[in-house]
C-alpha cells in the first residue's frame, strides 16, 4: 500500500479517538479531502521541481507509534540547549513527554496543542488562530492539518514576555522501523509581546523518520518573535517543515534556519505582512555533505505599505549534496515604500554537488526598493593563500573562510549560547577543532 492510501485510510481510525463536535473537526476533514485530491506533490509541480518525495513514499511508515517510550534525560541531554535555563516542550515519537518537559501557565501559556484542543479555556484562541495562516491549498500542509493533534502551543498575552526562551524538541527513538510524525505548532504573540523559540527535530537511531511539520506564528502589533530552527538530524531523517507567519503593524519576526544534517529537508517558510511598518527577517545557513538534500522555499508577501523584509541564505555544498533555494517576494499594488532584500550565496565544494537557485520577484507597486542577489562560486584562492602564508593549515584556513562566509547569518542570533552551539556544530561539520569565537 502506498503512503497516500495508508494515510487516507488511517484517517478514520485517527478520528475515532477525537471529539467530533469540536470546531477543528471540520477543518480536519476538509484538509483530508484536499490531500486526497492533490496527493503528494511531484516533480511536475513547479514548487517541487527540484525535490522529489518519491523515495519517501516507498517506505512503509507507521503513522501511529505503537508503544510509548521513556528516555533518560542524560541520554538526550546533548540535544537540548542545556547551557541556559529554558522552558521545554519535548515529544518522544510524537507523544508528549512530561518527564523531559518544563511547561508553564504563569502569565504565558507554554503547553500542548492536545490540551489546547480539549480544554475550554483555550477554545477562543484556537477558534481565532488555528489554521488561519496555514495554507488550505498546499497538500502537505493539509495532510498535517488533517492529522493535527499534538505539538507545541505557545500563547503570550499582551505586553508579556516569558522569563526564558522556549525549546521545542521532537525526538524519534527508532522503536518503529519507520516512523512518520506530524507535529502541529501554534504560536501566538499578542500586541507588544516578545518570545524566543528554538525548535529541533532529532532522530536517535538510523531508522527512517519522516516529519511533516506545520507551525503557525501570529505576531500582534509591536510584537517580537525570534524563531530558531536547528536542523542537524540523522542521515535517515527527512523533514518537511511548513511555517506560516502572519504579522501585524510594527511587529518583528526573525526566523533563522540552520540546515546542517538530515537526509532530505524541505523548508516552506511563508511570511504574510498584514500591517504597516513590519519587519521580517529570514536567514539561513546550510552546510551539507554526503547525499543530503536541502530545499529552502521562502515567500514574503508584502500586502501593506512601509514594510521591510530581509533575506539572507548561505549555502556550502560538499560531496553529492544538493541545495535548492527558491525565494519569492510578492509586493502588492498598495504596498508602496516596500523595502525588500533577498540574498542567496552558495559555495560548491565538489563536482558532484548541485545547487539550484531561483530568486523570484513579483512586483505590482512602483515606489519600492526591491533587489535580490544570487551567487555561486568558490573560496577565494588568494584569501586562502594569505591565511596559509600566516601559518594556518589549509583545512583550518578553509574552515575559517567558510565560517566567515556564513557569519552574516550567525551575527543576528540573539541567544549567545545557541550561537556557540551552532558554531560547534559547524566546526564539527567542517572537520576542524576550532571555536570560531574570534
Amino acid at each position: 500500500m502506498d503512503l497516500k492510501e495508508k494515510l487516507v485510510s488511517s484517517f478514520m481510525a485517527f478520528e475515532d479517538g477525537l471529539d467530533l463536535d469540536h470546531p477543528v473537526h471540520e477543518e480536519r476533514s476538509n484538509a483530508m479531502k484536499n490531500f486526497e485530491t492533490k496527493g503528494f506533490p511531484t516533480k511536475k509541480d513547479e514548487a517541487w521541481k527540484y525535490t522529489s518525495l518519491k523515495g519517501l513514499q516507498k517506505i512503509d511508515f507507521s503513522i501511529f507509534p505503537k508503544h510509548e517510550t521513556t528516555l533518560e534525560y542524560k541520554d538526550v541531554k546533548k540535544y537540548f540547549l542545556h547551557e541556559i535555563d529554558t522552558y521545554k516542550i519535548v515529544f518522544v515519537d510524537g507523544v508528549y513527554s512530561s518527564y523531559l518537559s518544563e511547561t508553564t501557565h504563569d502569565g504565558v501559556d507554554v503547553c500542548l496543542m492536545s490540551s489546547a484542543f480539549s480544554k475550554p479555556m483555550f477554545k477562543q484562541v484556537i477558534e481565532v488562530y488555528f489554521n488561519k495562516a496555514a495554507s488550505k491549498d498546499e497538500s502537505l500542509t493539509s495532510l498535517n492539518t488533517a492529522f493535527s493533534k499534538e505539538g507545541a502551543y505557545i500563547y503570550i498575552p499582551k505586553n508579556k514576555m516569558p522569563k526564558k526562551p522556549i525549546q521545542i524538541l521532537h525526538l524519534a527513538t527508532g522503536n518503529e522501523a519507520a516512523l512518520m510524525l506530524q507535529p502541529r505548532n501554534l504560536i501566538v504573540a499578542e500586541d507588544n509581546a516578545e518570545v524566543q523559540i528554538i525548535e529541533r527535530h532529532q532522530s536517535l537511531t538510523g531508522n527512517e523518520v519522516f516529519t511533516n511539520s506545520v507551525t503557525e506564528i501570529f505576531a500582534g502589533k509591536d510584537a517580537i518573535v525570534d524563531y530558531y530552527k536547528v536542523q542537524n538530524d540523522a542521515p535517515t531523517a527527512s523533514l518537511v517543515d511548513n511555517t506560516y507567519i502572519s504579522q501585524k503593524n510594527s511587529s518583528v519576526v526573525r526566523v533563522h534556519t540552520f540546515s546542517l544534517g538530515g537526509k532530505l529537508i524541505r523548508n516552506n517558510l511563508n511570511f504574510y505582512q498584514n500591517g504597516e511598518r513590519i519587519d521580517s527577517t529570514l536567514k539561513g545557513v546550510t552546510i551539507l555533505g554526503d547525499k543530503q538534500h536541502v530545499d529552502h522555499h521562502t515567500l514574503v508577501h508584502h500586502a501593506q505599505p512601509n514594510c521591510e523584509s530581509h533575506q539572507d541564505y548561505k549555502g556550502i555544498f560538499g560531496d553529492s549534496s544538493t541545495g535548492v533555494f527558491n525565494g519569492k517576494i510578492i509586493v502588492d499594488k498598495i504596498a508602496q515604500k516596500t523595502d525588500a532584500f533577498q540574498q542567496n550565496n552558495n559555495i560548491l565544494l565538489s563536482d558532484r554537488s548541485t545547487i539550484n537557485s531561483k530568486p523570484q520577484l513579483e512586483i505590482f507597486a512602483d515606489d519600492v526598493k526591491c533587489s535580490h542577489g544570487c551567487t555561486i562560486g568558490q573560496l577565494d584562492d588568494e584569501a586562502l593563500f594569505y591565511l596559509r602564508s600566516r601559518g594556518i593549515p589549509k583545512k583550518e584556513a578553509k574552515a575559517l573562510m567558510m565560517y566567515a562566509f556564513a557569519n552574516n547569518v550567525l551575527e543576528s542570533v540573539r541567544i549567545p549560547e545557541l550561537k556557540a552551539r551552532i558554531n560547534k556544530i559547524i566546526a564539527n561539520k567542517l572537520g576542524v577543532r576550532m571555536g570560531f569565537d574570534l
Partner: protein
Amino acid sequence: MAYTEEELKKELETKEYEYGFYTDIESDTLPKGLNEEIVIAISKKKEEPDWMTEWRLEAFRAWKEMEEPEWANVTYKKPDFQDISYYSAPNKKPKYNSLDEVDPELLDTFKKLGISVDEQKKLAGVAVDIVMDSVSVATTFKKTLAEKGIIFCSISEAIQEHPELVKKYLGTVVPKKDNFYAALNSAVFSDGSFCYIPKGVRCPMELSTYFRINQAGTGQFERTLVIAEEGSYVSYLEGCTAPMRDENQLHAAVVELIALDNAEIKYSTVQNWFPGNKEGKGGVYNFVTKRGLCEKHAKISWTQVETGSAVTWKYPSCILKGDYSIGEFYSIAVTNNFQQADTGTKMIHLGKNTKSTIISKGISAGQSQNSYRGLVQVNSRAENARNFSQCDSLLMGNRCGAHTFPYIEAKNKSAQIEHEATTSKIGEDQIFYCNQRGIDTEKAIALIVNGFSKEVLNKLPMEFAVEAQKLLEISLEGSVG
C-alpha cells in the same frame, strides 16, 4: 508649461500605433484550419522536395500530441489553431532581379514603414530580406554578398538551391519536437531567411530581415537559419511590424543559429508588432523560439528591443557546447497598456571555460505585466564556467507589474555565477535634478529611460540603435512615474 500628469497619461494612451496600416495587395491565402492536407499543400506551394514535406509532416504529427504550455506568467485567450490561415502570400509572386519590378504598392508599404528598400540600399548599405505575411519578397544586395560566397536568401529558396546545407542544419538546434510552438512552426513555416557565411569570411554588411503580418486572420510562421562557418562573422538584424487589427494575430517563429569554431554571430531584433489598443484589444501573440549553438571559441550575442506584441513569450538561448565559447543576451522589454511580456534567456554551459552575460532591462507602464524568466545551467563537466546576470526593472505607475524568475542550476564546483536584480521607479530626485537644469519632465524621463537602457542600446548596430531609441520614447511617452 509642462504637461500635467493626467494629460500626459491621456496622450500616451491615445498614442496611435504608427505602423497600423493595411496594404491592399492581392494575396493568395490558404483556407483556414490545420490538418495534414494543409501541411502538404504548403509544402507543394513552395515546390519543396519530398524530404522536406516528410519533415513537416513529422513535426505536425508530434504537434498534435503536444499541449499548449501554460507555465508562462501571461494570461491570454488561447488561439484557435483551426481558425488561422497558415499560408498567405502576396499574389504577384515576385522573383525580382531589380527593385523596379516590385509591385509599387508593396514598395509603398515599405516606405511607410520607413525602410524603403532602395533608400536603405543606397544609404545604409544594409542587405534586406523582406518577409511579408511570411513570404520573402525581396532580397537586396545579393550580388555583393555572392562575391564573398555568402548565401543570403529566403529559406524556401535555400531548400531549392542548397538542400544539403538545409538538410544538415535545419532542426539541429531547435528540434522539431522541441516545444508546442516550435513543432507548429516546423510543420507550417511558410518562409524565412537563410544565411550561410563561409569559412573565414567576415560579412561586410549588416544582414537584415523585415517581417510584417498583413493579411487578416493569418498567422506568421517564419523560420530563420543562420550558419556561420569556422572563423566567420555576421551581424544579423530583424525587425517586425503588423497592421492594427481587433483580433489577435499569431506569430510563432523559430530562429536557429549555428556558430562553428571561432565564429561569431550577432543577432539583433527590434520587435514592434501591434501591441493591441489601449483597452488591450487585438495585438499580436508573439511566441518565438530562438536558440543558438556555439562550438569552440564561438560567440553568439542576442540583442533585443521588445516594444510591441500583446503577449510576448520569447527566450533567445545559447547552448555553449564548445570550450571557451561565449553567450550574450542583452534585452530591453517595454510594456504599456495591457501588454504582457514573459521574456528572458537560457544559457546552457556544457563546454569548459564558457562564459555568458545576461543584461535584461524591463520597463513596465500602464497596466502591463513584464517578466524576466531565465535559466543559467552549468553542467558537471563545464569547468570554470562563468556567468553574470543583471535584471533591472523600472515601474511606472502602480497598475503595472514587474516579475523576475531566474533559474540557476550549477553542478560544477568551479562555476562562478552572479545574479542580481533590482526593481525601482524613476526617482523624484532624478527628475528634480533634470528639471532644475531646465529639462522638462517629459524629456527628463526619456533621458532617464535612455540611460537605464543604455547598456543594451549600445549593443545594437548603429542604424537600429537610433530606431530603437525612438521606439522607446514613443512607447513610453507621457508615463510619468
